[in-house]
């Protein structure tokens, strides 16, 4: 934080009117501090700085992030992110809700790609319970997760150019997203916050018509990504606004515990899907794109390539969809089929036991998935009961925001907008 002294100058009085809000004040820099900062930024700073609140209601802070900017003209001397405006106590809620009741709450973390959160949570419970998920359910999970990855990255493709001024990209991206909504709707019955993944399996079968729709979508999708790239990648203005802006070295990125496209943009091949495969990712053939410089442009390129790779994974999964059950056959944790509950006494008892008295063995487990923003992990302490004793979410968005201050210092307000876009965080997941 930059130390400053508040001056008794207000712009309103100077202009002949009193009663100015305390927000409108100028800050005087300490001379020694000014010397130090001038050297750091390589340009002479003025004596007076200005604080500006960027957010929580600002068009390009992607939700309710607030950044307290200390400005010298357009130059950002300091940027202090303030989080917590969307805190709903999701981790604490896990201690009072049964495991299956908590699944819909995970949707509300990264609400742009909800199924990945579902999988991450269910996988953690399955790991604690020692459940094996049947291959068909695993493949369906992979299909949904990759559809969600495309949805999450399409938000990036839409909103970041919108922040930088290319408003039409927003509509182009959302047009593709609308097709995905239809597909996801036909599988899960909901457009958003689908809660389709269950502990030990998935909610229901994929309809045949949807299999066809998904195949059509992934076949046509790479050409659409090419179209996005035609509008942006070769565009001189887009290049100028992103190249060499927000540069992170690999060491810095690791030091800030960044993961996902940001770390890959710095040139490190880190992907949970490859390093610790889950849900059968080892069976699919896909590449991990990496950047070279670690700037906003590299992150953009990495995400564009990931869109193509996701389509590739889906098309492999949908063509080789295994036959079989979509639920694990373990009556301690998985509900029996509905028709059996209505006809068999034992199954009815199992149903009751699972709902009211599921016993996840005592222990501590951590399980992570590669979410759209980075490594999304759930750390679960279970207490031989139907609820978590304690649940912690390792949310990539929170960690991505950590990088904001480092990247914003010494840059301009316009760059900050590009940096916020390229860090691609969701406040629902950050604040939880």
């Amino acid at each position, binding site marked *: 934080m930059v130390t400053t002294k508040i001056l008794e100058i*207000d*712009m*309103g009085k100077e*202009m*002949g*009117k009193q*009663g*100015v*809000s305390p927000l*409108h004040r100028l800050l005087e820099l300490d001379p020694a501090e000014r010397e130090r900062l001038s050297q750091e930024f390589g340009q002479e700073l003025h004596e007076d700085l*200005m604080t*500006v609140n960027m957010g929580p209601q*600002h*068009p*390009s802070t992607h939700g309710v992030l607030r950044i307290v900017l200390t400005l010298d003209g*357009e130059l950002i001397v300091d940027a202090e992110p303030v989080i917590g405006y969307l805190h709903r106590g999701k981790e604490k809620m896990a201690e009072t809700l049964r495991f299956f009741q908590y699944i819909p709450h995970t949707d509300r973390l990264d609400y742009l790609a909800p199924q990945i959160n579902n999988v991450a949570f269910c996988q953690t419970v399955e790991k604690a319970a020692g459940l094996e998920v049947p291959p068909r359910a695993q493949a369906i999970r992979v299909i949904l997760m990759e559809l969600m990855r495309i949805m999450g990255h399409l938000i990036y493709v839409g909103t970041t*150019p*919108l*922040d*930088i*001024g*290319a*408003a*039409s990209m927003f*509509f*182009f991206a959302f*047009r593709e997203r609308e097709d995905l909504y239809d597909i996801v709707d036909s599988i899960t019955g909901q457009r958003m916050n689908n809660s389709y993944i269950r502990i030990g399996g998935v909610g229901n079968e994929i309809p045949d018509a949807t299999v066809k729709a998904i195949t059509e979508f992934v076949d046509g999708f790479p050409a659409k990504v090419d179209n996005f790239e035609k*509008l*942006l990648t070769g*565009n001189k*203005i*887009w290049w*100028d*606004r992103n190249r060499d802006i927000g540069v992170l070295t690999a060491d810095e990125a690791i030091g800030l515990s960044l993961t996902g496209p940001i770390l890959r943009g710095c040139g490190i091949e880190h992907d949970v899907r490859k390093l610790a495969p889950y849900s059968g990712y080892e069976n699919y053939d896909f590449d991990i794109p990496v950047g070279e410089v670690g700037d906003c442009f590299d992150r953009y390129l990495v995400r564009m390539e990931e869109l193509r790779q996701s389509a590739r994974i889906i098309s492999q999964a949908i063509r080789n969809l295994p036959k079989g059950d979509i639920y694990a056959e373990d009556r301690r944790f998985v509900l029996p089929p509905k028709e059996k509950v209505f006809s068999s006494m034992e199954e009815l008892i199992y149903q009751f036991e699972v709902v009211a008295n599921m016993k996840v063995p005592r222990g501590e487990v951590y399980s992570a998935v590669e979410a759209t923003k980075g490594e999304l992990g759930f750390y679960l302490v279970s207490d031989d009961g139907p609820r978590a004793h304690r649940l912690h979410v390792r949310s990539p968005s929170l960690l991505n925001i950590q990088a904001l201050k480092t990247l914003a210092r010494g840059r*301009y*307000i*316009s*760059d900050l*907008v590009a940096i916020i876009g390229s860090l691609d965080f969701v406040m629902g997941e950050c604040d939880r």
Partner: protein
Amino acid sequence: MTTAFLIATIIKVLVLFHMVPIMVSLLTLAERKVSAWIQFRYGPNRVGPWGLFQPIADGLKFFFKEELVPEGANPFLFRIAPALAAGPAMMTVAVIPFTFPILIDGQPFSMAIADINIGVLFFIAMSGLGVYGILLGGWGSNNKWSLLGGLRASAQMISYELSMMMSVITVVMLTGTMNLGEIFSFQGEHTWILFFFPVGTIAFVIFLIAAFAETNRLPFDLAECETELVGGFHTEYSSMKFALFFMGEYSAMFTMSCLLATFFLGGPTFFGLIESIDSLWLRALIGFLVFAAKVGLFLFFYIWVRWTLPRFRWDQLMHLGWKILLPISILNLMATGILIATGVLS
């Protein structure tokens, strides 16, 4: 001056001046329709056939909104700024000849509101005034985002005005007059300034780029820049004051398109075809349609660019203005002088 001449002048002034607000309202509709077309949407289609009455609904809405003057704002500057933004932009239209002159009472009757021989100077003066509205609006709002927007606007408009004026002087040198009516009749006799290769073409490109910056349109809309500066200079404005800023922007867009058509595309001329029509009234009518088509072309180009390109950063914009456009336009001016002096162009 006869009575018929006087009446004709009054009618001309009324018609031509009211064309600006009407064009502005049509432009807001066109902007929404074209952007919808680019973005696979329908655009406004509820109010009237094809959404044609949408601008009226918008205008009414603006009239009924509450007018707010924020605490700590400078009341005088805050109130005068929208007028300063809209006024000069609309006044530029006075010198634009919309078509060929006709004869009233045996006298030639120009189709510009003010057929003055310093038309180009008048346009330069008026477009120089345009920056004050935005600058004072940004300063007077007592809002930091507005202040940043106002400062950006003043820096941007001043730097692009220079290269724009240089390219206009190229036109003046080529045509040898500052009267806009004579500028287009010169182009009717010779050829459009656009085809005076290379100097006329370069001047055209520079004027086109600078016109984007002068009218604060994307990719140069740094003063407004809603995703960075919330709303830029008009963050605190509501009601008709806000609408006046918009009218200023759109009327500047309209007059800039008219000037582009007059300076570089020969105004109402079309390769000598229209001048060959004998009836003066018919010639004026067809000339007006040709002029309208050329203006429409530029207006569409404006909207098209806005919904396609990202936005510059302000230092990149300054770099483009001072280090690229200005040297090119000065060199272009010198080249024009040399070409005229050596008799290559005359």
